[in-house]
């Protein structure tokens, strides 16, 4: 409901914004434009994350108008190259000091979000994490809110699903950085807690991974299932090796978080991906009018791309900022933050809430299977765990 109200308001505001310039705007508009500093990896190894989030952010402004609470939203996009925390921190500082932004947003990787956190605290500005997924991020500053997901949140369901499927042994393969370790720990705790056994735990380097030897070890260990978490964009490489190693024939089922079957790359992965079961908060195949509109708009605006779970973090981040601006009539700082806490709406991924206490996202998590529909591969949801919180560390 709320979403619809907001949309109508947004349309109105958008119309106002269209007329405003003709009426010599500055005096009439409620205030200066509200600037959002969007810091994302636009180049380097994690560029695909940045591209997805940015595309969603732009789409949001195109579809919902640019003015909220009487203020025009202005996006200042900055490239943090995905690897250098001091660059992220400097960009955040600059956006605050020079560009006087009303909120910081984006943040592709955990260390980069960590580096920027003190800036948000000191500047007393909301910092909307749209991509990074380590549990601990929101604790680094009382000004951080998250619209992406956390690894424990999406990992726990697949562990329990595997137990329900009577899988008794599962190996884990995770990328060797904080989100990966989060995933590994949570999976193991849940899975062994439910009576399963984890005979093999593998960690792949974050950069330059070659998955073949790792998967060979899995094949030799012959677990019933292999749990996989790798960063967005790496899924295809794992999938290929999974197929080449013949793990499926050896009786190993591929399970994981949805990162490995990234919607943007899923079609190119081809047949090997078929049947992979993952748990995640978003699938481009999610069956709802909101999502249909979202996917359609996204593909129309970005030919050759399909929105993935990173993009939806960007979309909802904008929704959060827009709604809070609307609610506060163009408020700033702590007022804006207060308006963001506890907000709920229906996202393309389904109903979500930003918890007022933890500032972390509460959302439905789905169990999905890769299936072919109309000649394309999709993650088809077949089970849902409503209102999952981050189970904590």
């Amino acid at each position: 409901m709320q979403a619809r109200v907001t949309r109508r308001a947004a349309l109105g505001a958008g119309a106002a914004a269209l007329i405003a310039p003709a009426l010599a705007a500055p005096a009439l508009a409620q205030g200066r434009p509200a600037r959002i500093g969007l810091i994302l990896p636009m180049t380097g190894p994690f560029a695909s994350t940045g591209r997805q989030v940015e595309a969603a952010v732009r789409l949001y402004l195109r579809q919902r108008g640019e003015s909220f609470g009487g203020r025009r939203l202005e996006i200042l996009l900055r490239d943090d190259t995905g690897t250098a925390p001091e660059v992220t921190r400097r960009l955040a500082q600059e956006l605050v000091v020079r560009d006087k932004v009303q909120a910081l947003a984006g943040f592709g990787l955990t260390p980069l979000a960590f580096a920027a956190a003190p800036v948000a605290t000191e500047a007393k500005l909301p910092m909307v994490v749209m991509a990074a997924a380590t549990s601990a991020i929101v604790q680094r500053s009382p000004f951080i809110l998250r619209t992406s997901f956390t690894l424990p949140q999406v990992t726990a369901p697949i562990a329990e699903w595997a137990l329900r499927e009577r899988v008794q042994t599962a190996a884990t393969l995770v990328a060797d950085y904080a989100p990966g370790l989060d995933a590994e720990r949570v999976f193991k705790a849940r899975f062994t807690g439910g009576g399963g056994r984890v005979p093999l735990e593998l960690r792949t380097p974050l950069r330059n991974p070659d998955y073949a030897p790792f998967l060979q070890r899995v094949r030799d260990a012959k677990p019933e299932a292999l749990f996989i978490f790798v960063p967005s964009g790496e899924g295809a490489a794992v999938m290929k090796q999974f197929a080449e190693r013949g793990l499926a024939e050896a009786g190993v089922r591929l399970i994981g978080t949805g990162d490995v079957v990234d919607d943007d790359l899923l079609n190119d992965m081809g047949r090997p991906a078929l049947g992979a079961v993952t748990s995640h908060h978003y699938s481009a195949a999610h069956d709802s009018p909101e999502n249909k509109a979202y996917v359609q708009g996204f593909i129309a605006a970005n030919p050759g791309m399909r929105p993935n779970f990173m993009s939806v973090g960007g979309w909802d981040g904008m929704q959060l900022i827009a709604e809070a601006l609307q609610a506060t009539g163009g408020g700033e700082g702590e007022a804006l933050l207060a308006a963001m806490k506890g907000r709920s709406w229906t996202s393309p991924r389904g109903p979500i809430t930003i918890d007022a206490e933890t500032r972390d996202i509460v959302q439905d998590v789905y169990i999905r299977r890769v299936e072919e529909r109309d000649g394309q591969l999709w993650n088809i949801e077949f089970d849902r765990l409503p209102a999952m919180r981050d189970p904590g560390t």
Partner: protein
Amino acid sequence: MLTVLLDGLAAGMLLFVLSVGLSVTLGLMNFVNLAHGAFGMAGGYLCVVLLNRLGLPFLACLLAAALCTGLLGLALERLLYRRLYGRDHLEQVLFSIGLVFIAGAAVDWLMGARQQLITLPPWLSGRVELGGVGLGVYRLFLIAVCTGLLLALHLGLVRTRFGSRLRAAVDDAVVARGLGIPVERLFAVTFALGSGLAGLGGALGVEVLGLDPTFPLKYMVYFLIVVAVGGANTVIGPFLAAILLGLVDVAGKYYLPQFGAFGIYTAMVALLILRPQGLLARAAAR
């Protein structure tokens, strides 16, 4: 065990094809071409476009990738590289890193930043069981192709007139010029050959190494290791180095995954400390 060995071999072979051109440019022209990986990337993207968009058969794509990158190399050599022969190594580094940046951005602009994937033809995918050991068909294919290339290169260098001229020019370009060998043309042809091989390696590697605009930087360290450890004068040196690197890398990941890439770096440093001179002869001059 055998599978690990074979994987290492395949990885090493691929690395060899990708980096042999670099060691030749270093040995022959005393040119530090850090942009070598960019030719590999060009080959990879050509292969992806031809295969996915035009639907050409895989082998034709490989061939086209090698040819086109070779021509690209030739053009760049004539237009740009030629001007920097004999300059300070660090200036060459500046130049070739610049090229890498340009290539990366250009590819990003044309093709986007995401990973490029190809689907292999059925006869190259899957695995075969040989004596109870499962081997990836594509890895066997890699090994076969690269062995063929190695033999061709070696024989070409030893048996043909081009080869003997090339070896003479590597030994001493001044003397070779005096003997009436067209060193300039030799440079150009060799450069094109090296680039073409890198292009082929890039195309072959899409399936194994992945492909995105950061490819040249991502694998630069590996290429450099091959050249440094293998030496810059022969084809055999880099070949052995590449195979060694592939084996150590794969075996390290299989048996000691907790140590990450530590093994490879330690091996390289140890080798270089033990045999700094024996591993390279001509490349050391600044």
